[in-house]
């Protein structure tokens, strides 16, 4: 991802060097959050919908095994080939094998966070297979050779002028052109040729229905349909947690998804795929990649309820001011911070700490994942597993020593206040990360405890 070994705090430092840009990023995403609020408040039964969605997903997770087998059997009956992948690597191999069998080395792909998680594009390109992302935002970050910074709005970190420059360089649009309508039209022409000439299309899956063996792909651009309808081979890649038991349950999730994501009542296209067309082959790749491991962690299993709406990112005050790339993982923001440590606790040890635990993420989540509580719990696990910064461990032990003893606490407090008062240079220097951009509190003469001790409350009347 090109972020090297920097953690979230260091990457956020870099992001915050350009304050005007941070303001723009924050306001753009806050606008989406505000649209979400408006859409939610138009549905009086919104909170009930969230509760139902949460319960449906809890039910799926409680019997995932049976639902998966039911889905597989029904999909096979519909003429779909079903593949199982234990991890990202196996998923990538399966996709490549299907393409190889069909003699295809150029494909189109609509948005799929799963394929980002598995790094499918890099893998296929290493094996001389060209992948064109057809979601406009994803195509833009692909041209920029960057990962998406947001699961719903992949290029939300890019300004239209920057997109204009990219299109000028790669698609030959006139220099300095940044009109969104013009740029979108240029992208459309560029992508149309790809849709017509590519013989295989990959799509993601938003929901898969166990009862019928069908799956649903939601897009605003219709690019999943364009790809799948024109291709001889349709490969749909999905995480095993994407199931819903019955088709009727879609009525709950389709109402929640787009409202939570962008504030739209529903995505422009909610396309149901059930069986291949004549002379078309259709494949589904069911991917675990750590999901069953997460299912086995009681404190964290319900993170698998996620329907990838991105509402927690839009509302997160930290995400808005640090940008998606600062999370150095395919799925950024609060939800990414509780999913990623499951995959690699050491590499993502910083993410559960990239939060103030304000709880807004939990409140917007359409399937009621207790995200901020899981962030707190991951912190405990990460420290216990030995991934905490040694300096922090020492500081925490010193704090424990001071705060566990009333007498040590009193002396430390008094000394601390005296140092701040009479030797402020000891505290107010550039080693003090508080003082860099904030003044220290003015130390009072007395603590409350000291004041209280001097009072004579004996004459007060009490009831």
């Amino acid at each position, binding site marked *: 991802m090109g972020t090297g070994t920097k953690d*979230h*705090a260091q990457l*956020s*430092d870099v*992001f*915050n060097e350009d*304050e005007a840009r941070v303001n723009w990023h924050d306001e753009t995403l*806050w606008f989406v959050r505000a649209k979400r*609020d408006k859409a*939610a408040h138009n549905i009086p039964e919104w*909170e009930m919908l969230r509760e139902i969605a949460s319960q449906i997903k809890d039910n799926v997770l409680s019997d995932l095994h049976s639902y998966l087998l039911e889905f597989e059997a029904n999909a096979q009956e519909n003429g779909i080939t079903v593949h199982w992948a234990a991890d990202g690597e196996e998923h990538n191999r399966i996709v490549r094998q299907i393409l190889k069998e069909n003699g295809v080395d150029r494909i189109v792909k609509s948005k799929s966070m799963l394929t980002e998680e598995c790094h499918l594009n890099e893998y296929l390109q290493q094996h001389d297979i060209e992948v064109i992302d057809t979601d406009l935002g994803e195509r833009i970050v692909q041209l920029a050779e960057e990962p998406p910074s947001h699961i719903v709005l992949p290029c939300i970190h890019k300004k239209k002028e920057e997109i204009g420059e990219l299109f000028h360089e790669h698609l030959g649009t006139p220099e300095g052109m940044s009109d969104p309508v013009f740029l979108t039209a240029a992208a459309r022409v560029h992508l149309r040729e790809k849709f017509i000439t590519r013989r295989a299309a990959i799509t993601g899956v938003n929901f898969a229905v166990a009862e019928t063996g069908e799956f649903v792909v939601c897009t605003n651009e219709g690019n999943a349909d364009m790809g799948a309808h024109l291709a001889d081979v349709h490969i749909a890649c999905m995480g095993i947690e994407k199931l819903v038991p019955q088709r009727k349950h879609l009525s709950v999730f389709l109402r929640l998804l787009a409202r939570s994501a962008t504030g739209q009542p529903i995505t422009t296209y909610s396309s149901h795929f059930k069986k291949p067309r004549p002379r078309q082959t259709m494949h589904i790749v069911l991917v675990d990649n750590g999901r069953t491991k997460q299912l086995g962690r009681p404190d964290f299993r319900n993170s698998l309820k996620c329907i990838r709406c991105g509402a927690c990112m839009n*509302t997160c*005050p*930290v995400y808005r*001011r*640090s940008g998606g790339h600062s999370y150095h993982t395919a799925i950024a923001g609060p939800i990414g911070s509780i999913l990623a440590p499951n995959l690699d606790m050491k590499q993502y040890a910083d993410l559960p*700490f990239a*939060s*103030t*635990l*304000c*709880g*807004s993420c939990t*409140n917007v989540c359409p399937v009621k994942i207790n995200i901020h509580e899981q962030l*707190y719990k991951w*912190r*405990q696990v*990460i*420290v*216990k597993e030995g991934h*905490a910064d040694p300096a922090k461990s020492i500081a*925490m032990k010193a*704090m*424990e020593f*001071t*705060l*566990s*003893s*009333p007498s040590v*606490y009193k002396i430390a*407090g008094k000394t*601390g*206040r005296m140092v701040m008062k009479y030797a402020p240079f000891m505290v107010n220097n550039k080693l003090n*990360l*508080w003082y860099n*951009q*904030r*003044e*220290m*509190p003015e*130390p*009072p003469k*007395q*603590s*409350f*405890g000291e*004041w209280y*001790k001097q009072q004579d409350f004996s004459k*007060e009347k009490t*009831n």
Partner: protein
Amino acid sequence: MTVGLFIPCYIDQFYPNAAIATLTLLKKLGVNVVYPPKQTCCGQPMANSGFEHLTQGCNDLFTDNFAEFDYIVSPSGSCVLHIKDHLHAQGKKEEAIQIRKKIYELTEFLTDVLKVEKLTASFPHKVGLHQSCHGQRGLMLAQMTELVDRPYSKPMQLLNMVEGLELVKLNRPDECCGFGGTFCVAEEAVSVKMGKDRVADHLLNGAEYITAADMSCLMHMEGILRRQKSKVKVIHIAEILNAEAPVAATGTTAANSNKPLNA
């Protein structure tokens, strides 16, 4: 009814006026209040940093200090939430469970237990109310903008009883200020940016004072305001609810901190 007054460590050390105002206000409302002198901290700074396993000493001390009271009241939503969610005492399991049930943040104690309907306070200023997240979303002191539910706000309900006080409307009524405990230094850049943005919302809407039911958020915003050399001040909600009319403001230390801006 005897109330144990829990004054979090940083309020004890840096903001004694907020604690004095809490004590004075409760007494004014006829409550028998006792401050156990051996208290230190709820343990939250360690727990939120992933070191909850180091908080046993704090937990045991807290339980020893507060088990005997009918209620425990504190002028900090965040510390109260921590006790409610995470207090576990080794030898005194049942006492700890009881404490978790009988601890209240100051404003919710006033509205829900004392059922205060009027106050004698006067504070003729434009005030911005910062909804501290742990109090609001954790203790549910006020309705949250994310949820589709009836609006209410316990701190606002009390501020509306204060004579002369004008609440300013904010563009983002419940966005986090970015303090976040150790987050404020571990993620300095984002923390400061969040604080600057929160402060700017209050300034833009004409607040003379920023108040909250949590002093930690105010400490963070105060640090930013003072660095900006702003005249806008932070003040704990207890100090406003305890503020006497200017003519009567001669007695307590708490009232002295409520001087008008130009004084």
